[in-house]
């Protein structure tokens, strides 16, 4: 493959600017704002700022949900970042109970302590061959993914409790932190993830 063709789902509430900048250093980025734009894409990125219900409503309104599922079922790589990771699961409760993309079993829950997780953390890789270089990554979220252990690739810690930092079901990958905001470590992580 000469150049990666990366599709980036465009949410109206998200800061797509930074992720797009970083991705364009790795491949050719195509913004996806309607269901006809899924052709000629090798990797799909679902970014995220906003709420679970807001994001899912958006995907349904613009008929993007079906296309995402089709893309995922074709076996090509789908990567969800932060909220984009959370909507990969079956159910979310933010604002109101909403069904997710259901590409990975599980639900999205609010931290019991009701405290936002904002800041830099190291992750603990428990599965897969992602190199654990003891890098710091930047997290900013108040909900986390509750899923089966066999989907969890790496864990991070908030208020003494572990939660999934990376999850994976075959070709579908979710990342809770923001690699595009984690300095040099984040960018090299993203490169490794996209190219493996």
């Amino acid at each position, binding site marked *: 493959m000469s150049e990666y063709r990366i599709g980036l789902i465009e949410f109206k509430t998200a800061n797509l600017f*930074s992720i797009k900048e970083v991705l364009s250093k790795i491949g050719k980025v195509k913004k996806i704002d309607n269901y006809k734009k899924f052709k000629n894409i090798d990797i799909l990125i679902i970014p995220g700022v906003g*709420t679970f219900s807001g994001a899912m409503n958006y995907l349904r309104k613009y008929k993007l949900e079906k296309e995402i599922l089709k893309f995922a079922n074709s076996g090509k790589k789908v990567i969800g970042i932060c909220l984009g990771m959370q909507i990969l699961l079956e159910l979310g409760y933010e604002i109101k109970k909403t069904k997710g993309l259901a590409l990975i079993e599980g639900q999205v829950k609010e931290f019991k302590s009701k*405290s*936002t997780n904002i*800041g830099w953390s190291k992750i603990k890789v428990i599965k897969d061959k992602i190199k654990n270089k003891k890098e710091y990554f930047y997290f900013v979220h108040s909900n986390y993914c509750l899923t089966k252990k066999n989907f969890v690739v790496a864990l991070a810690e908030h208020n003494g409790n572990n939660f999934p930092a990376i999850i994976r079901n075959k070709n579908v990958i979710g990342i809770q932190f923001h690699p595009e905001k984690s300095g040099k470590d984040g960018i090299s992580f993203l490169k490794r993830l996209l190219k493996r």
Partner: protein
Amino acid sequence: MKPLRIIPRIDIKNNNLIKGINLEGLRVLGNPYDYAEAYFKDGADELIFNDAIASLYGINSLHKIIKSLAKNISIPICVGGGLQSIKDIEKIFFSGADKVYVNSAILRNRFLLKKIANHFGSANITVCIEAISYQNKFYTSYLAGREIVEINPVDWAKFCEGEGCGEILLTSVENEGLMQGTTSKIFEKISNKIKIPLLAHGGFGSFKDIYNLVKNVDVSGVVIASLFHYEYVYYLKHKKIVSSKIGNYSYLENIKKKKRRNIISELKKYLKNKKINVRI
């Protein structure tokens, strides 16, 4: 425990980086791009950008600056100053901000915060609280300390947490810009009352000032302007100023160049030696 976030704060007026005392008396110190880039390279954990006069006029004009910064800086950027509506915030997010903070808008309209938090998600919305004390009583202020309302900052922080904000940025207005240390009392009171992260701002003049606060009070980050700016100004001063028409330039014209010192890395080393967890 997560590492303590070291967050430089960049105040902007007429496209220049400025610094005042008690949020007033603004002095031009240089080009915000140069400082932001230098701080990023020096190991800052996040950057805060404040449109220093926006709330007076009700417009935040940082889009352009944020857009070009976000291209080269891959750490989180938090933007505030004069953000009044969902539309204002949307525009800032599109320009490349990762978090925004609000202050005057939500003091004017108590229903707005919940709306904003529900729309953008709690984690991305920070509330800035300006705390000011008078005769041993604390008040909340806005418009850079100009307007004072009779609300206790502790109650206000608790209210904002309940409405769904993800983080509190607390400025101790009477300490701000003086570089003589900060009053830990108000930070302590608020940190005891809320579960969301608290950022402390206002008055840090030395490494020791920072250590003295963080060893006693559970803060998630420290927000620093003068201490960093007045170190970097020595070798960033020769760089081009953005607009050289308006503002107080006399300080900048009269300083000499000095040898570069990586003050953020040094601060982190200092804190690490004191057993404070930092990202190095």
